[in-house]
């Protein structure tokens, strides 16, 4: 089979990347200034004895190498540790945050991909017209907007019509399933829209340039000489070839979905992973940070792998 070697090579490379990233994550947070104990103790004038006791409790008195070794061992058994901040298992904290984040970021990203692809294709197909100018200018404008500013503008615009914070209306007691879904959809609208609008411009620009490059190729002229209509050329020859760079971009951005969106989640008080990471940084919650970054690493590496394999599938010219 074509590419069995290729797949094995890619997978091994991906696993290696994850291991290196785990190591770097471990080291990185311990290099950050400040100490977990200062925050944990929450008493600025704690006696040295108290501090030492707390350090012992969390294993921070051991050498960095010992800590690393223990971390790897536990990780291998699937134990991500206990959060310094709320003493809950990190895995539980991450799961809750992830479940909140994924629908919001996924909707925003899918919205961005669809809108970006559509406007990008139109810009390329109608090259030199007002449609292209409008499409590119709008895309650039949204691309340049600070996420939190756009979020605030949407809050100002839609406050009163749509909820602007949180995931659900806490005053709904025992809502029926349909009411609950409707409530959730209303809450998810603004954060997803903000994220989608900020992200879509990049897709427009990349899809446009990929399409323009493809449309200038000789085989497009061949397709026209064959007697195909414009629409058929777009579908049969242009889109498929322009998909190559776009597929990579889509796979890579799916990888970042688990990272959440710190700014959006902060503006809209969305209890997702982005905010969890932000809080963990403030509290020097090493296990939580390590867990979150591990999750992000695995996700990014996994989708990179998907992008590689997809590219391999789409472009017959790629060889091992």
């Amino acid at each position, binding site marked *: 089979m074509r590419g069995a070697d290729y797949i094995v090579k890619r997978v091994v490379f991906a696993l290696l990347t994850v291991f290196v990233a785990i190591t770097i994550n471990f080291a990185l947070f311990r290099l950050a200034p400040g100490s977990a104990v200062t925050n944990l103790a929450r008493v600025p004038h704690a006696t040295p004895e108290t501090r030492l006791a707390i350090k012992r409790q969390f294993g921070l008195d051991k050498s960095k190498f010992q800590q690393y070794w223990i971390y790897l061992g536990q990780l291998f058994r699937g134990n991500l540790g206990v959060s310094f901040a709320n003493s809950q298992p990190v895995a539980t904290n991450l799961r809750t945050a992830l479940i909140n984040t994924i629908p919001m970021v996924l909707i925003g990203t899918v919205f961005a991909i669809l809108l970006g692809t559509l406007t990008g294709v139109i810009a390329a197909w109608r090259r*030199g017209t007002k449609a292209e100018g409008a499409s590119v200018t709008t895309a650039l404008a949204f691309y340049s907007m600070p996420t939190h500013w756009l979020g605030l503008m949407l809050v100002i615009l839609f406050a009163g019509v749509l909820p602007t914070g949180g995931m659900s209306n806490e005053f709904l007691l025992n809502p029926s399933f349909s009411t609950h879904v409707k409530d959730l959809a209303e809450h998810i609208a603004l954060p997803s829209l903000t994220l989608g609008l900020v992200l879509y411009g990049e897709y427009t620009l990349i899809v446009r340039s990929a399409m323009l490059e493809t449309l200038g*190729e*000789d*085989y497009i*002229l*061949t*397709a*026209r*000489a*064959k*007697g*195909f*209509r414009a629409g*058929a050329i777009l579908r*049969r*020859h242009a889109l*498929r*070839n322009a998909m*190559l760079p776009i597929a990579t971009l889509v796979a890579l951005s799916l990888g970042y979905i688990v990272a959440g969106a710190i700014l959006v989640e902060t503006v809209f008080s969305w209890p997702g992973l982005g905010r969890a990471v932000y809080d963990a940084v403030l509290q020097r919650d090493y296990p939580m940070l390590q867990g979150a970054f591990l999750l992000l690493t695995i996700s990014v590496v996994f989708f990179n792998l998907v992008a590689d394999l997809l590219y391999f599938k*789409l*472009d*017959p*010219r790629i060889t091992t």
Partner: protein
Amino acid sequence: MSSLLEVEGLNVWFDLEGERELHAVQGVGFALEPGERLGLVGESGCGKTTTVLGLLGLLPPSASVAGSVLLNGVDILAGGEESIRPHRWVDLAIVFQGAMNALNPVKTVGSQIVEVLELHERARGREARTRTSELLESVGIPADRAERFPHEFSGGMRQRAAIAMALACNPSVLIADEPTTALDVMVQAQILELLDSLCRDFGLALLLVTHDLPVVAELCDRAAVMYAGEIVEHGPVDALYHEPRHPYTRLLFAATPDLYGEGVPASIPGAPPRLDRPLVGCPFHTRCDRAFGRCTHERPLLRELEGSRSAACHLNDVVAEVV
């Protein structure tokens, strides 16, 4: 009786920045009878390819085209895209330059032939694949290569595949735009031989666009020499070679390396005139070795001469007066 393909007064202008225009093709006309082979020759940038793309309506939107293209007496250019499209590939098929990228790199060679058979409803499904195999074999490519991608073919095989693709709908005119450029000499010879035998076997009329005079001499009955967007001389290949009636034709032949001849090929000094401003006098007079007073201010028109040929040069008047 009307010719198979008759091009009359074809003009192409390209829009440039600042309301300017480039007059790339200037009143080109020629006719092609069934089975006839016409070579369109000239140096790079003289408008050969633009002429061909113009008559097929394949130029980009920045180009405006005027003139008529009569296919069996019917003007296919008059109705725009809608009137040309049904004739593309069915009546007028084209083989592009190099074929390097003329085939889509992410589709198999076979599927690119099948798609054109299906588009013009010549065959579908299994039947189309069988026909594709036959086509590939007719140009010397084993049928099992249909499932391969263009990058798995050599340059010569890609060119053959492009020719097979052009034959898919049994066109009456085959247009070949620099079919042998970028191929090595051995492969060039094979491709020319292939074109020659296919034209004979299928009774195809051939419009061969090239800068390579020996290729025209080998393959064509007639040739039209283009310079600065217009045809400056047109006639039987032998007559053009032995008795050119335009200095450009003579210098062009002199610039071609001759395997058996002695001496170095002579280049033509200077460059063609810019086409984004009106031309005064003969477009060639600045490079011509026989230009005289009239050439600098009066533009020579393409005039019919004896022996079914024509040329656009004032010298022909002088000779006529002298003789």
